């Protein structure tokens, strides 16, 4: 593909699959052998997910998975908010959810046909060196398990890109060039209940410092025309801050607000506007943000006496 062709990048994270209000697969058989029935909040998230799959383009050039894909062990609440406790089945459930998207992501540097035909059916070869343009960043330790085990398992199943250290999941992808646009992607960002643009503003400041230092040392492979910073973790809903040629994004989660966030992080002060994910069209060094994959988060019911 030439650098003049438009490329589509999809960024999603914070699925928190198998949490009581997370994005959870439907008709999925869990470790007890039962097919999991969804509650109304999970039904809604899943309905939005199906809508999102319909709206996404047929080809997704780069998929970035930005952490907290499964809920994990929910240890602080003794697993009472989990619909599935088993981490292996949580990984399988997330892979099951993501598969319709992953199929649209091209392979990276293939030397031979990645598919084989067995009994008239086409299968992907069982080869760990087959990688798609899927870039995974590690979620919070609390959710991903030791060594990000849950997300590593997902990366292996989906044939994500491996790092030089052999891990699919990286803590921080600080300089990924897609054409002339540089991406800096990580799960974590500061969480503040007021002045919610501040963390993104600060990320832009740190970026300017880093890139200035790299420029002075002559380390930059090329001059980026635009820089996109992507962060997750805070469950603020979609937020974007622009300064010069830098765009800083806070990704929405797919999980609706639970008691931990409403009473712990946001202390009964904030309800997110939306859930979903964000896309980017990249062409000629320009970035167009696609916010068509956002869905309303349930809002307070105004009771009048």
């Amino acid at each position, binding site marked *: 593909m030439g650098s003049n062709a438009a490329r589509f990048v999809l960024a999603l994270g914070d699925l928190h699959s198998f949490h009581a209000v997370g994005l959870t697969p439907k008709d999925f058989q869990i470790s007890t052998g039962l097919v999991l029935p969804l*509650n109304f909040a999970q039904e809604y998230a899943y309905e939005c997910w199906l809508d999102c799959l319909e709206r996404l383009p047929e080809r997704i050039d780069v998929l970035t998975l930005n952490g907290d894909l499964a809920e994990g062990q929910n240890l602080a609440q003794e697993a009472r908010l989990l619909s599935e406790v088993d981490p292996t089945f949580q990984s399988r459930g997330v892979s099951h959810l993501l598969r319709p998207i992953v199929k649209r992501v091209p392979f990276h540097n293939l030397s031979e046909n990645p598919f084989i035909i067995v009994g008239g059916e086409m299968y992907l070869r069982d080869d760990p060196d087959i990688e798609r343009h899927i870039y995974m960043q590690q979620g919070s330790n609390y959710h991903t398990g030791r060594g990000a085990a849950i997300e590593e398992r997902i990366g292996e199943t989906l044939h994500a890109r491996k790092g030089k250290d052999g891990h699919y999941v990286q803590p921080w992808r600080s300089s990924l060039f897609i054409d002339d646009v540089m991406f800096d992607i990580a799960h974590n960002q500061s969480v503040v209940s007021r002045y919610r643009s501040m963390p993104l503003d600060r990320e832009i400041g740190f970026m300017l410092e880093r890139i200035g230092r790299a420029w002075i040392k002559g380390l930059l492979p090329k001059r980026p025309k635009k820089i996109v910073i992507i962060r997750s973790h805070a469950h603020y809903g979609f937020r974007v801050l622009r300064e010069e040629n830098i765009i800083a994004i806070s990704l929405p989660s797919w999980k609706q607000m639970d*008691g931990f966030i409403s009473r712990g992080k946001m202390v009964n002060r904030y309800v997110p506007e939306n859930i979903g994910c964000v896309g980017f069209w990249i062409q000629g060094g320009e970035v167009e943000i696609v916010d068509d994959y956002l869905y309303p988060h349930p809002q307070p019911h105004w009771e009048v006496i």
Partner: protein
Amino acid sequence: MNDKGEKPTPGFSFDELQNLLFPDISDEDDLMTVAEIVELMKKHMPQITSPMIDYRLGQALKAGKVERKRVRRIIGGQQRYAFGYRKVGGGKIVDDA
């Protein structure tokens, strides 16, 4: 996406979302049996698991909506043990409590 290309909307409020996690059992005037409480929880959350039931029964106990003895029989029950938590007693879930 429906036929008109419209996006889904929640169809429930933030308050109902919160109640999904913490069902309001105080609406019931009478003392509830364990079976009634579990039934009420299942209405809110069809796939409710044993730890969730334990937690909510703890709330029910605090609210004075269940008798301590019945709650103990569930908290110390087979399912709690099956999830690998501390085994408190040898009771079982009793639907007709």
